[in-house]
C-alpha cells in the first residue's frame, strides 16, 4: 500500500491535523493509502518507505518522491493543486 508522510517540527499538532485532513480527502476520493504524521527529526528515518511527502516546514533536501506543500491544506490557499498532485502521486 502507498504511504504518505506528513512532517512538522513537533509532530503533535500541525502535521497531525494535516494528516487527518489528507486521510479524509483520500477516503472521500476512495483512494487507499496509509497516512502518517511524524516530527521532522524522524523524517529521514521513515521517508524511505513512503511515496509522498507532505511538508509543513520547507524541505531542506530532495527525497526523490513527490513533495507537497502542507501549509496549503491548513490555509486553503493552493490546496486544490496540492490535492491533485497527491492523487496523481498515489495512482
Amino acid at each position, binding site marked *: 500500500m502507498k504511504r504518505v508522510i506528513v512532517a512538522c517540527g513537533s509532530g503533535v*499538532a*500541525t502535521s497531525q*491535523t494535516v494528516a487527518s485532513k489528507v486521510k479524509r480527502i483520500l477516503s472521500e476520493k476512495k483512494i487507499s493509502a496509509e497516512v502518517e504524521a511524524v516530527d521532522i527529526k524522524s523524517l529521514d528515518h521513515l521517508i524511505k518507505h513512503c511515496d509522498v511527502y507532505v511538508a509543513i516546514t520547507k524541505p531542506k533536501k530532495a527525497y526523490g518522491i513527490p513533495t507537497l506543500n502542507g501549509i496549503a491544506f491548513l490555509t486553503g490557499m493552493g490546496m486544490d493543486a496540492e490535492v491533485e498532485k497527491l492523487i496523481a502521486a498515489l495512482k
Partner: protein
Amino acid sequence: MIILDREITNLILVQKHLSVEEIANHLSTEKDRVLERIHLISEQLPHESIEVVNGEVKVSEKCVDELYASLVGNLSSNSNEYEVDLRKNLIKLELIVRNNHHTLQTLSDLFYVSKNTVFSDMKYLKEELKNLNLHVTYLRKDGYQINGPEYLIRNHLVQLINELLKTAYGRSCLIDRFDINKEMVSRIKQKLESIEEEIMIRLTDEQIENLPIILSILLQRVQNFPRAWSFKVERYDIRNTLEFPVIKKQFREFPFLKDVDLLYLSLHILSSNRIESALDFADSEEISSSVNQFITLLKEKLAIDFVKETDFKSKIMLHIQPAIFRNILGFRVNNPLTERFIKEHYYVFKAVTHASRKSFGTILEHDFSDEEIVYLSMIVLGWMYQTDEDSSAYYKAVVLCFNGTSVSKLLLENLKDMFPDIEFIGAFSFRQFEQMNLEPDFIFTTVPMKSRITTIIVPPFLEPDSRKQLRKVVSKLLSQDPKRKAKGIVFAIKDLIPEDKRELAELALKSFFDKEEEKRPIYRERISLTEENISVIDSPVSWENCVDIAFKPIINRKSIENDYIDKCKSIFYSNYRQMLIGPEVYLPHAAVSKESADIQITIFKRAVTNPDGHSFKIMVALVPEKTNAHVPLLLKLNDVFLERGRIEAIIACKSRKDILNLLEGG
C-alpha cells in the same frame, strides 16, 4: 492475576493517561467492571494505589513500578518481609557509604524503627557479614562501622545496590537516601556512552541505567573513606588493557579518585554485560578454544546440533568475556530467574554446568555460580529452540529487553514457539531499537515503554500461566485491530486470491473493519470547547506579547507551567510561518507529554502585526496531549476557519457565546 486484570494493567502501564471509559471500550467490557478490577488491582499493590479522578486513571511513578512488578510476578507477597530486608540492606549501605558516627539512636532515627529493632538488625548483620569476611564493629568514639578488606567492602556495596535496583522501588529509594541528583546520573551515563563509543562495545540497557547509580554511590564511598588500599588481579594486567586508559580519561574529573580507585571502577565496567563488542578480549585465543570445547560438550550431552553455530559461538563469547571477569574478581551476578529456570529446565542447567566446568575450568578462579550458569543456559536453551525453517508468519514483531542477551534470547525463542503466526525480527535492547528503522506490528517488551506500535509487556521468564494469559492477550489484540484482522484473513485464504489482488483484498477488508471500529466511542471527539476556552482582547497587543497573552488563561487553569510557554515562544517565534491552523490563524504549541489537552482561542480585536508586516486577529494556543486527543478539534477548527467569511464573522462577534456558536459550526 486474571486475564482482565492483566489487560488493564498492561493498558495503564503502556498509556498511563487513559480514562475508565476508554479502558472499558478498549477491552469491550463494562465501565463498572473495569472500575471494580482497578480497585482490586490497586488493593494488591503493597504501598501505592491507582487513583481514579473524574473517570481518569492516574498513577504515580512508584505505582508504575509496583504495577509492573505485579505484572511480571516480581512483587513480594509479604510486604513486611520486604520492608525488613530493605531496611537491613539500607543500614549496611549507610554504614558503608557514610562515614558518620552511627549509633543505635542515629540509626533508629534514620529508619523510623525502635532502638531494639536496630539492635536486632545489627546482630543479624554481624553474622551475615562474617561469612563475607567483613566485620561489624562498635566503638564509643566511632560508632558502628563495617570493617574488612576495602575490595570486599566495595564488592559488597555494589552487590547490595544491584539487589536493591532489582526490587520494585529500590531505585527511587537509593536516589532519595543517597542524594543522587539527576545531573550526576546523566553525567556518568554520558561518560559510559563515550567509553562505549571509544572501546567499541555496547552495554546492555540495564547496565547503562544501573551503572550510573552504582558508580555514584561508589564515588561517595571513595570520597568519604579516603584510606590507602590496594588489590591485585593475578591473571590479567588490567592497566595494560585498551579499555583502562579510556575509562581513566573519562573519570579523571573526580580529583579524589586515586589510580587504584580508577582501576576498581574499570573492573565494574569491564565485567558488565554487553550486547555488542568489536574488540577481542585479552587471551581471546584461550577463550575461543574453551568456547569451542563448551559447544562440543553441549552437543554431546544434549544430543543436538545448533543451527548457525558460528553465530551461537559469537553469542557465547560476548557473554562469557565479562562473565570471566566477574568470576576472576569475585563479583556476584544477580539473576532473579535462577531458581525458576533450574526448576523448569534442570537438564539443560546440568548439561551447561558440566560443559562449562570442563571447558572454562582452566581460565576461571573458581566454578561459575548458579546465577552465571543460568544466564549461559538461557542462551543455550534459546538457541536450542531456534530452527532453520522458513517463517510462514504474516505479522512482524520484535522483542525488546532491558536485561541483555541471555534473557532476550530465551524470551525471543519462547515467543516464536508460542506465536507461529508472528515473524519475530529479533531481540534488541531499547537503545538498539531506537536506532533501527523497524516497523513491526507488535513490540514485546519486558519493561513499559511508549510507542505508537502495539506494545505488550511480558515477564522476562514465561511460566505456564503467563504463557496462557499472553496467548489470550495477543489473540484479542489480533482480533481487535482492523489492519491485523484484514492481514490475517487474506493470509488464511491467500491461495484463493491472485497474488496481485491480495493487497487490494487486504485494503477492502481493512476499510470494512475500520467502519466497524469507528462506531466505537473511543474515536469520538474527546475535547469540547466552552466559553472559557475563548478570550477576546480589546487592547492593543504587540507581536512579542501575543503568545503570553494567548496562553494566560491556560496558565490560570494550571494546565501547564511557565516553562511550557517559554518552550512555545522559542519555537513559535522562529517558526510562526508554519504554525498555522487556518489562514492567518496561528497555532503556537510544543511537544509535551501532558495527560490532558487544553486550548485557548484568542480574538485580538486590534490586529497584531507579525515581523513580515502581515496582521492577524486570531491565535489558537494549544497544549497537546500524548494520544492526540486534540487532533479532531483542530481538524474541526481548521474546517471552520476555511469556510468563506467565517473568520470575519468570528472577529465581528460581540460575545464569547456567539464566537463559540460559530466555532461549533452554527
